[in-house]
């Protein structure tokens, strides 16, 4: 979550679900928390019953809206205008918590004179390279920051660099790009026209309530009610929290939407305080864990960067120099990468061979899901492992994704049931349409039964960074096995083959430590042994380290994931602990880092170390004891005095003053302004979704210039305002199902609750299109056509956008051709596209057509799509005229 990472320093939710009960206002946006996190939502209900105001902003009135005090609909994809409006409201209506903002954020920092804002360049910041289609962020840097050194042959934003590394925030990842480091030029009066505060104020000056009404369709008066309600949850006595999910992230501006929320929370002084913060609601049991210990292409465990194919990777030293910061926590970068290499290559990792750094593969392209999938479609990949995911239903442009599978030599799918990804070769829509023929598909498919959560030991990391151990209750049935079993025994087999090899390519495999103890008839690796390796130990005597503070860069420590170092502190399996103590349930599971439940909680005390108020106290400075104390583990050096002032030459955490709470950042501040680390600007700017019914009401620039639409014939887009696709389409989940359905459509008790794909449409749209509740409707985009049952409901509201009526269509995406409850694949409608920072697709805001009746069978769908694609508004065919809206429809 670079949105959070760049703003605060860590890419994780800043708070815990239970802490929502302490909020005075909760803004839920980009999420239907009651539907998708019902049990977590009990804490929102607790707050509501205590008198907190619950606000839900969502295109649909859904189960969360039904629990909220305030609901306003907005046009999917206009979130930054709405949130920018809140930022402006906070600034212009004196809602900013100055006593917090001045010391704890970079609001007072002065910026360079050459900086230009989208206000000046009609949507662009200064530094845009029109030929490379990317920014050079030099003009965004703090005033006085070092100039970019010569000879950096790598431009500021390598295409290779993925976004997850940005979750570190503030690290050097821009070539030799200098970083905002202390000291800076400041104006604590916030009056200087070039200080971050004033620049931000000017940037959002046109995000008025009238603009919100025009762009989002939210009546200005209603917007003001929301703004007043949320912005009042600020100051010493009150706090407000924001909850979001993929309703924010799955946009071509996803990271910047979250950034806007971060800016708002910083201005209101709501970060690091009880009842405040930003709660990212993740959708899978361990999705936080799968970025902490990433099965991702661009990062290594603990958000260390994968080495890129560039000169900085030629030596460990230059690689470290690129990512290590002079000041702030990332000064320890070398300790973490070396300890990781020691954990992976053990004995073979020595100072002489740079601890095996040279064995790590270098990233030389976009190897994200969508990036390599397009290579797969081009026949450039041979093999694919799909483990516990179902891209045939869950991924955008399913047609393209499924057809790409047929280009593989081999495919291994591991899951609890036969998911659509494994059966693509005989029962995918492409087979029905004759695009794929089983006897022409060369792909060798291995479908392997996986073990379930009660059939294996292990930890999940939940949405609030809490690691919880789940105990094995029974052996998995039949040939079902855990992934540790699969990885271990596959690795064992492969290591066998290279025992005697002298080839360079085999050295990493030879060196890889793979000596895990096994148990039971299935020879299941002992999971606790893996957990110990993740926690870290001293290779010399095998002793466990106490935590990441003990890690060293000299090879004397080995640690599989530095942020998880501590989960086995004292030889105790902390995630397995089940004795909750105190307000923040310490003793139940273990939260990274260092069991801190609320991040940046130094903010909960005033600069002088005293709580802002009795009501909102969390941690505070105990002068007698000479340490920080309170209800949570302080996210700060425990004995660093509030009045501590670093020496000029101080490095690392010593360079962070006693009143600078964001210790991961080189300047210890919360970043309203992100000088470096984001590809699409230091401040959030509204761009229309890649597909939109209207033109950008704020700038001449229609869409995010840095986003990658990956436009191609089989991934086509509708032009702005295309009359063939007049409605806004948004996708979402339902309580009764889980993501691509492999864990829900197959269960009778869940399938019966939501048995069919349906589309939620307003009575107004239904009347226009001649659709009755329960009818079949067909929804089309330039990529695909799906049929669904109409759920005509007044919970869907047509909105007036820029003067024209815009209808929105809601489509849950759980169904597929298999399972008990079956239906068309909604994600087939979505385009493959990449948000510039994390390469996420835009699934939450696109355009579609809607018509009564079922879609054609078989190849008819393709013919239909081609017909529509062939239509030019000026064509004179009757159908084209009707499509161009010039014909009145048959009565």
């Amino acid at each position, binding site marked *: 979550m670079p949105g959070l990472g760049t703003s605060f320093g860590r890419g994780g939710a800043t708070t815990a679900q239970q802490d929502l009960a302490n909020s005075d206002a909760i803004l839920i946006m980009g999420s239907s928390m009651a539907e998708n996190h019902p049990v977590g939502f009990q804490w929102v209900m607790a707050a509501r019953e205590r008198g907190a105001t619950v606000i839900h902003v969502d295109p649909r009135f859904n189960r969360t809206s039904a629990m909220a005090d305030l609901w306003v609909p907005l046009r999917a994809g206009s979130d930054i205008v709405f949130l920018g409006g809140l930022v402006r409201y906070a600034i212009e209506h004196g809602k900013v918590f100055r006593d917090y903002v001045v010391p704890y954020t970079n609001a007072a920092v002065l910026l360079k004179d050459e900086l230009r804002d989208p206000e000046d360049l009609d949507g662009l910041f200064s530094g845009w390279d029109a030929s490379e289609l990317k920014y050079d962020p030099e003009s965004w840097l703090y005033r006085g920051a070092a100039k970019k050194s010569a000879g950096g042959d790598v431009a500021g934003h390598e295409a290779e660099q993925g976004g997850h590394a940005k979750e570190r925030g503030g690290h050097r990842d821009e070539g030799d790009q200098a970083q905002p480091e202390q000291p800076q030029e400041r104006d604590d009066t916030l009056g200087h026209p070039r200080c971050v505060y004033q620049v931000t104020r000017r940037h959002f000056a046109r995000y008025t309530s009238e603009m919100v009404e025009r762009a989002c369709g939210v009546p200005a008066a209603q917007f003001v009610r929301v703004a007043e309600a949320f912005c009042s949850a600020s100051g010493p006595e009150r706090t407000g929290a924001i909850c979001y999910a993929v309703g924010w992230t799955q946009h071509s501006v996803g990271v910047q939407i979250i950034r806007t929320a971060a800016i708002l929370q910083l201005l209101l002084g709501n970060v690091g305080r009880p009842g405040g913060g930003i709660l990212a609601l993740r959708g899978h049991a361990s999705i936080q864990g*799968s970025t902490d*210990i990433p099965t991702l292409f661009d990062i290594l465990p603990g958000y260390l960067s994968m080495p890129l194919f560039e000169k900085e990777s030629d030596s460990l030293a230059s690689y470290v120099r690129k990512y290590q910061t002079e000041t702030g926590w990332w000064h320890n970068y070398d300790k973490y990468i070396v300890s990781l290499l020691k954990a992976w290559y053990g004995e073979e990792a020595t100072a002489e061979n740079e601890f095996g750094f040279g064995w790590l593969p270098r990233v*030389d392209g976009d190897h994200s899901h969508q990036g390599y999938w397009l290579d797969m479609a081009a026949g450039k990949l*041979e093999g694919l492992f799909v483990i516990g995911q179902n891209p045939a239903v869950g991924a955008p442009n399913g047609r393209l994704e499924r057809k790409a599978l047929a280009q593989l030599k081999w495919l291994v799918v591991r899951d609890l049931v036969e998911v659509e990804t494994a059966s693509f070769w005989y029962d995918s829509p492409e087979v029905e349409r004759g695009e794929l023929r089983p006897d022409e598909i060369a792909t060798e498919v291995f479908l392997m039964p996986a073990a*379930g959560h009660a059939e294996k030991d292990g930890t999940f990391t939940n949405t609030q960074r809490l690691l919880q151990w789940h105990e094995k209750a*029974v052996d998995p049935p039949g040939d079902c096995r855990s992934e540790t079993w699969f990885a271990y025994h596959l690795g064992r087999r492969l290591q066998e*083959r290279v025992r005697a090899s002298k080839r360079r390519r085999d050295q990493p495999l030879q060196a890889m430590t793979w000596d895990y103890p096994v148990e039971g008839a299935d020879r299941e690796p002992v999971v606790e042994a893996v957990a110990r390796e993740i926690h870290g130990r001293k290779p010399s005597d095998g002793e466990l380290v106490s935590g990441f503070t003990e890690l060293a860069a000299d090879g004397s420590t080995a640690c599989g994931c530095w942020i998880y170092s501590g989960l086995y502190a004292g030889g105790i399996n902390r995630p397995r602990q089940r004795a909750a103590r105190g307000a923040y349930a310490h003793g139940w599971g273990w939260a990274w880092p260092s069991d801190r439940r609320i991040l940046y909680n130094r903010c909960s005390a005033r600069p002088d170390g005293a709580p802002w108020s009795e009501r909102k106290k969390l941690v505070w400075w105990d002068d007698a004891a000479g340490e920080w104390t309170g209800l949570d583990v302080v996210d700060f050096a425990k004995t660093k005095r509030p009045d501590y002032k670093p020496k000029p030459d101080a490095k690392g955490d010593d360079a962070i003053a006693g009143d600078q709470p964001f210790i991961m950042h080189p300047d210890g501040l919360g970043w309203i302004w992100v000088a470096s680390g984001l590809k699409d600007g230091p401040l959030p700017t509204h761009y229309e979704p890649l597909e939109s019914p209207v033109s950008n009401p704020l700038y001449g620039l229609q869409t995010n210039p840095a986003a990658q639409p990956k436009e191609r014939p089989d991934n086509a887009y509708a032009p702005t305002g295309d009359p063939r696709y007049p409605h806004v389409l948004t996708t979402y989940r339902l309580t009764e199902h889980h993501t691509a359905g492999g864990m829900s459509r197959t269960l009778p008790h869940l399938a019966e609750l939501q048995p069919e794909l349906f589309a939620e449409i307003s009575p107004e749209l239904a009347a226009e299109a001649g659709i009755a509740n329960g009818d079949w409707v067909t929804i089309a985009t330039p990529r695909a056509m799906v049929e669904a049952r109409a759920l005509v409901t007044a919970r869907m509201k047509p909105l007036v956008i820029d003067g024209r009526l815009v209808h929105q269509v809601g489509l849950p995406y759980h169904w597929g051709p298999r399972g008990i409850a079956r239906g068309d694949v909604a994600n087939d409608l979505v385009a493959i596209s990449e948000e510039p920072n994390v390469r996420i697709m835009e699934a939450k805001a696109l355009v579609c057509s809607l018509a009564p009746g079922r879609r054609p069978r078989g190849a008819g769908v393709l013919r239909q799509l081609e017909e529509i694609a062939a239509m030019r508004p000026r064509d004179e065919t009757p159908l084209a005229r009707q499509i161009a809206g010039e014909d009145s429809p048959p009565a």
Partner: protein
Amino acid sequence: MWDLIREWPLLRQLRDGGDGTGPEAMSARTRELQTKTAGAPVARSVCPYCAVGCGQLVHHRDGKLLAIEGDPESPISRGRLCPKGAASHQLLTHAGRLTKVKYRAPFATRWQEIPLEEAMDRIADRVWESRERTFEEERDGRVLMQCKGIAHLGGATLDNEENYLLKKLFTAGLGMTRLSNQARI
């Protein structure tokens, strides 16, 4: 026969009164009713669906799952579950659960079942062959050490330890860089 008559609720009615709606009408089974989980061992677990992280109590006996319920002591969920969490017993026991390896040969039109060990051997072969074909140690004199032909997808539903071993094997061991999962942001 005599037992049958002695069990006859009508006699109990005549003896102890009652209008036939109370204990006199209860069968032996009802009088001895117990929960299916009575006395069964319990494992402490975590819900496998979303990321709320609800605590679960897994009741099992003789290697069979009996029931999965919320863990009242969990400070996050307080014993409560959503419909998916409540269905997680069925998730592991439903009839459609896959328990054997299915194999599809190139151009084949149907699945065949193969033994687990054989599948593992064949997968190891495929990985080895593809790695041999697509591994690049250097490019323009600069280290690449990359296995270009194999990709991985998935992880957000897996345990941290599972992701750790997969990442370690795929990246540190095999040199794969094409790794991705549901976590996009």
